[in-house]
């Protein structure tokens, strides 16, 4: 049992890396399945449209799923129609765009993985670019080939052109090489950008490294405690209500937070370097309701990322 706990702890400590690797494997598997089962290049003038749709629509779908699965999206948008002031608070209009930008960056991980895997494979790009009608591009690709290249490039992806095998094979290899170089560029650019943004965010962080670590632990624990206490109070309240219904008695009072208290507790947390509040509930409990309505500063995003959707 002890050994099992040690192994589990080892994996739990690296769950971000394992999560990302799992997502990458899933993307690779999905891309393989798509290109083997579903993708059939039409080998006509429709190549470009077909190839681009297969390349970009799954990326769009993954982006939307990314937005759905991020609990911060729901925290930001719940109740915004009833009270627009919630997402555009007085004096801090950019707050919404800042938070939305963070959510988008998180949701962009899966689409970028899909794009890079699809480009490294080369099938979709090969089909799409063999249908491109741009004369400059055709001149570049068909440089030292026969005249047939200009008219029959779109049939090369299916192997149905009347050009000799060595020529059509070389054309396919050139297109796949372009695709793979583009794929590597996408990966490198993404990696560089994410390293730079993480560095900048870290440098400008108002809290030190160890406090950040404690904060993450606190956030996880608070979420567990909230779930537990929701269960407890929900049980108490529903028991009381049902008992009074069946036994036709007067209900005894149970104290629950007021509507405004729930509203205040649901706001996105922002950090103030003069005080030391690790979450919105912490701030609410120590300062009372009025503390929440003050000017907001930057948001510490991970605090709210894993809240209950």
């Amino acid at each position, binding site marked *: 049992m002890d050994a099992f706990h040690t192994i589990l702890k080892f994996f739990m400590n690296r769950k971000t890396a394992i999560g990302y690797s799992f997502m990458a494997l899933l993307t690779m598997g999905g891309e393989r399945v798509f290109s083997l089962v579903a993708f059939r290049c039409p080998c006509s003038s429709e190549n470009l449209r077909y190839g681009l749709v297969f390349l970009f629509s799954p990326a769009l779908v993954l982006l939307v799923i990314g937005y759905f699965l991020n609990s911060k999206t729901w925290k930001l948008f719940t109740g915004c129609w009833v009270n627009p002031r919630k997402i555009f608070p007085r004096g801090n209009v950019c707050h919404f765009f800042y938070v939305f930008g963070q959510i988008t960056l998180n949701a962009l991980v899966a689409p970028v993985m899909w794009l890079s895997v699809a480009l490294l494979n080369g099938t979709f790009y090969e089909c799409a670019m063999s249908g491109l009608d741009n004369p400059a591009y055709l001149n570049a690709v068909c440089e030292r080939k026969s005249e047939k290249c200009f008219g029959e490039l779109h049939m090369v992806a299916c192997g149905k052109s009347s050009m000799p095998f060595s020529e059509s094979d070389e054309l396919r290899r050139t297109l796949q090489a372009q695709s793979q170089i583009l794929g590597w560029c996408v990966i490198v650019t993404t990696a560089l950008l994410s390293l730079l943004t993480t560095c900048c965010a870290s440098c400008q962080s108002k809290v030190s490294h160890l406090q950040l670590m404690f904060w993450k632990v606190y956030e996880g624990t608070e979420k567990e405690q909230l779930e537990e206490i929701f269960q407890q109070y929900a049980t108490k309240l529903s028991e009381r209500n049902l008992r009074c219904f069946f036994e036709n008695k007067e209900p005894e009072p149970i104290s629950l937070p007021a509507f405004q208290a729930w509203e205040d507790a649901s706001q996105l947390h922002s950090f103030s370097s003069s005080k030391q509040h690790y979450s919105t509930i912490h701030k609410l*409990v120590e300062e009372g309701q009025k503390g929440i309505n003050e000017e907001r500063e930057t948001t510490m995003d991970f605090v709210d990322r894993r809240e209950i959707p």
Partner: protein
Amino acid sequence: MDKLRGALDFCIRHQTVLGYSIVSLLTAASEYIFSSVVFKCPCNSGNMLYGSVFLLVPAFILLLLGYMVNVRTWRLLTGSCPPEKHCDCSSWGTCARYCQVLVTVTARALVAPLTWIAVALLRASFYECAASGNSLIKNLICKDQKDQEECQNLLFKIPCDEQLPTKISSKFLSLQAQSQLIGWFLIASIMTVALISTCVSRCCSPVSYLQLKFWKIYSKKEQELFEIKAKEHATKLAEINTHCFFEATDPAPFHTPSNEDWRKISFLYTFSSQKQYYSMIHKYVNTNRGNSARFQEEGQNPPVLGFVDETHAIESGF
């Protein structure tokens, strides 16, 4: 059960070496997958670009990943340039310290990229493709040939055709042999540099062998207890807060370390031979919660004590 326990203990004791070996194995495996499944040399004038991209770009990406995963990077950078204070690199000491940590972190991060390059060179397909498009190689091999253009075209086709190398010239080593020689040379030089630098850092170590051993055990223990204590403290604080939220009462006074206390223990560790402190927490606690002048004393940063800052990595960087 006993044997499993024994095996687990062995793994935990040697987890650094095991970790690096696993990283190297994973890199070698993915290089194998890439070169057999994904890599198709175009066999035309794009050979050089294609081959070099496959050889060098994944190495660069692995380097960036190595930086992101290393705890010391984030320990050094977090909070170093907050917007309210103007970050000043004017002090020479701070700059030197940053550079030294950067060099150590880079050395650690270079393991995976160099493994990739070494394995890729040993397998020879990437180098063969890149070299067959390289003008230097072309000048070397084709200088005695009458028809330069024909020779170049033949050279381009080498990665796609197994029989071709013999037709061009038997004077020079085949491209595959060149690649493997370079690969072995790279591995040998990396090993030599690693051995020399470890020797030098151990020679310059201000502490003795047994004390270093004790120190490593202390760091690990401190990290485990820190995690346990942090979880306990966080649980108590979260309990107080959630109960007070539901019952609309005021919270009981509960002491938690202040922002300034956290900042003090997050500094990078410096060694001082007068007083023996095994970590920043130790130093903080023994110098009147960081208020005594001894806390701010400058110390040395011997490379052999780099492991002190590499603990406390729950979810480093992400």
